[in-house]
């Protein structure tokens, strides 16, 4: 104790020690601050911040493009209706084209069906097996087609919904899922129109959907049919319909 007291007093009596220590610390910090080299961009990749801004701009551009597409589609539908009324001589052809269009998934459709919820586990978010993957949805969609679904769409958070159509791919991009070029995040609702009993039994088939059910039991992945959603509306397909190479 007296030794400690002695050291304490010797420090208190010599305030230059404080100044010295502070000076050294400041020197070190200031030195490291000034010697910090700003990294040069030596690869074609732009900096993270620039990428961040670019992503925001591109997302906003995508939203505007989709809005414009929807508006143009509306005008096309309106004009088609006007033509249908005016051109009664071509009524059969117009009707045939309309039927094909509907069958191709280019109109909204409402009919009995099911809605399936697929979501990340609540308690084990850091485990890759506890989150919903694009591959789960690919397997689900394939399983629903096998069991007679006539229309399928996938809805993500914020009611962003995409219909599965002729050029649809379901891909994982880091931590989001891209469907028809639209970024979708969980919770996912997979909506299918068709015979309800058959579709329900297909979703309950633990053998066919083994990869999903294994993770439901082991990792807490959320996967079940949504009760009470028996009348399903699937929006029209809005993905790419550019056929430049395929000809009849």
């Amino acid at each position, binding site marked *: 104790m007296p030794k400690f007291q002695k050291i304490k007093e010797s420090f208190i009596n010599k305030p230059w020690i404080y100044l010295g220590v502070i000076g050294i610390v400041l020197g070190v910090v200031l030195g490291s601050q000034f010697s910090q080299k700003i990294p040069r961009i030596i690869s074609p990749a732009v900096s993270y911040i620039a990428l961040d801004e670019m*992503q925001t701009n591109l997302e906003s551009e995508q939203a505007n493009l989709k809005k414009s597409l929807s508006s143009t589609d509306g005008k*096309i539908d309106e004009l088609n209706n006007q033509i249908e009324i005016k051109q009664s001589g*071509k009524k059969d052809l117009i009707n045939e084209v309309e039927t094909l269009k509907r069958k*191709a998934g280019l109109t909204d459709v409402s009919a009995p069906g099911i809605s399936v919820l697929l979501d990340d586990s609540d308690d084990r978010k850091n485990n890759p097996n506890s989150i919903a993957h694009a591959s789960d949805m690919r397997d689900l969609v394939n399983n629903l087609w096998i069991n007679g679904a006539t229309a399928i769409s996938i809805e993500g958070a914020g009611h962003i919904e995409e219909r599965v159509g*002729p050029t649809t791919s379901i891909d994982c991009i*880091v931590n989001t899922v891209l469907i028809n070029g639209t970024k979708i995040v969980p919770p996912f609702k997979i909506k299918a129109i068709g015979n309800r009993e058959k579709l329900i039994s297909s979703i309950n088939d633990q053998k066919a959907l083994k990869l999903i059910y294994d993770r439901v039991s082991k990792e807490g992945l959320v996967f079940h049919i949504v009760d009470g959603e028996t009348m399903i509306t699937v929006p029209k397909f809005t993905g790419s319909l550019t*056929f430049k190479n395929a000809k009849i």
Partner: protein
Amino acid sequence: MLKFNSTTREVVSKLLLLAAFLVLGLLIASQYLLYQKMGFTQSSNDPGGKAVRVSNLYSDNNKLKDQLNDRETQLNNLQDAASNNDELQKLLDEDKAKYQIILGVVPVNGPGVTIDINHQLVLTQLVDLINALRNSGSEAIAVNGKRVITTTPMESFVDQANYKIEVIGEKDVLYESVTRPGGILDLITYGSATRSDNLLLPKV
């Protein structure tokens, strides 16, 4: 040498400590902000992910722009067709052909690639393969002579001894996406691909 009485020493020492911590705090904050501005903290948590997302957004927006151009052309054509019988006929024929291709109710021809795989594929490989081909811009697909459309389940193609997958689309784009390192064949299944100027795929 400086000499203080005990009260002054205490005040000076406390003030000095306060000033030192203040300056240190400011420096730490400015250092952190500098690092953040340079992207160190964030990019180290997400290496490459942001670039992939931006790249995909860019390519998807280009596709959307193409779609919008197509729709605007269609709208213009419709406006002409509203007052011109021949234009209307042409437009209806084009739409009809497009929908028939989508539904697979007619045979279809065009350039593309043929993928040959000489071993069995399980269901998930087939699902992923067709998904990847659609992502690469395929316009029509046939597996072992059978047309694949939106609603075609992959079950019927499982465990066949070999596969011939014919894909109509931009043949160079398809070929590259199929054969490049880390591409479809590399990631999903081994096989070979050849470009073709004219493939003929059957109807469903």
